[in-house]
């Protein structure tokens, strides 16, 4: 169901007549074509899993990490263009450490998600920047317990108890919906995620 936005899709600062920004939609396509990334919120924490894509047999395993830690209490899994993902994680790390320096406590996950989302959104506002071609699943544990957020290339972020991005997201979401997450511990969660 791809729609061609002839003429209205050349810049992220152009709206189409039916009110869409095509560049952002194309960025989301980049995410949809990448390896699947799943995140679930269990009662005592977050479990994230990524599909291991072996780009080359000569590559050393463990060198193309897609789950990265942001701070002692939070981490991110990226789907889509890996380089874009690295940039987002770097920004998140910097936000987290500066929050800790100023406010004296680890950054609440909600606050971190908002900052990452505004950064991603920022890059959809100017014609000299391109939108990020990656979707990020952000998980963390703060005073209010474990929380899971997903940030899309458009810059929107919602809180989830189960999220999936990438090629197999539909199938993964169906599987996640079958799970009873409020009663699951992280240990059991890891097994469920691995099965998916």
């Amino acid at each position, binding site marked *: 169901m791809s729609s061609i936005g002839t003429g209205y899709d050349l810049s992220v600062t152009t709206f189409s007549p039916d009110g869409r920004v095509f560049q952002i939609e194309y960025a989301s396509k980049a995410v949809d074509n990448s390896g699947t990334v799943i995140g679930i919120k269990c009662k005592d924490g977050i479990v994230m899993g990524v599909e291991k894509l072996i780009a080359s047999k000569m590559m050393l395993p463990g060198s193309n990490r897609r789950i990265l830690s942001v701070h002692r209490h939070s981490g991110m899994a990226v789907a889509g263009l890996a380089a874009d993902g690295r940039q987002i994680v770097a920004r998140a790390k910097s936000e987290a450490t500066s929050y800790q320096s*100023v*406010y*004296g*406590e680890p950054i*609440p996950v*909600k*606050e971190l998600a*908002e900052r990452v989302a505004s950064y991603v959104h920022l890059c959809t506002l100017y014609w000299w920047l391109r939108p990020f071609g990656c979707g990020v699943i952000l998980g963390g544990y703060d*005073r209010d317990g474990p929380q899971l957020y997903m940030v899309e290339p458009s810059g929107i972020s919602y809180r989830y108890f189960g999220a999936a991005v990438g090629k197999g997201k539909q199938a993964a979401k169906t599987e996640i919906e079958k799970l009873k997450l409020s009663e699951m511990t992280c240990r059991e969660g890891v097994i469920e995620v691995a099965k998916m």
Partner: protein
Amino acid sequence: MDLDMNVNAPHSMGTTIIGVTYNGGVVLGADSRTSTGMYVANRASDKITQLTDNVNVCRSGSAADSQIVSDYVRYFLHQHTIQLGQPATVKVAANLIRLLSYNNKNMLQTGLIVGGWDKYEGGKIYGIPLGGTLIEQPFAIGGSGSSYLYGFFDQAWKEGMTKEEAEQLVVKAVSLAIARDGASGGVVRTVVINSDGVTRNFYPGDKLQLWHDELEPQHSLLDILNAPSPEPMNI
């Protein structure tokens, strides 16, 4: 008679300030004297200022410096509360004060006691003395009058007091310091902060208990003939 009272000296708050935790919250207390040199510029000042709905700060040292610091922190905390979507914690308030105090230590002269209640940690008191140290304490004292209270608190402080006990302790302590410290005086103001909110109380100077050696106010010399001897101090 030396009339050379330097009325243009910087306003300093001689001060006695106290913050005490109790079972369920905190009680902050302070005297009300602001002096410029030997002249009392304000005999009824309010040294306990509000930072947020649930956090207050007791100010001592330079009046101007402490007001500016609390104004900045109130502004930052307001923004922080809006972003967070819930009340700020006492720890965050204390940290913001500490950063201003420490990073500007060469220019500022303020000793502050931050006290408040939040849903995660309950009642907490943080002392931030001159150099910008941040220290969490079950009770904290500050200001010139506090020198006379160290021994008193060592003996009278105990863990897990009730709200009434804590408030009585604070009022007694401030009034003892006022009795001995020339730079503290006026009235005793207290602020109680707990899960129910903030309560301000006021104890006028002439209603405070008198201590050993203090004279009863005299209306007529004839009253001295019939005056009883002062009560010895009870612990």
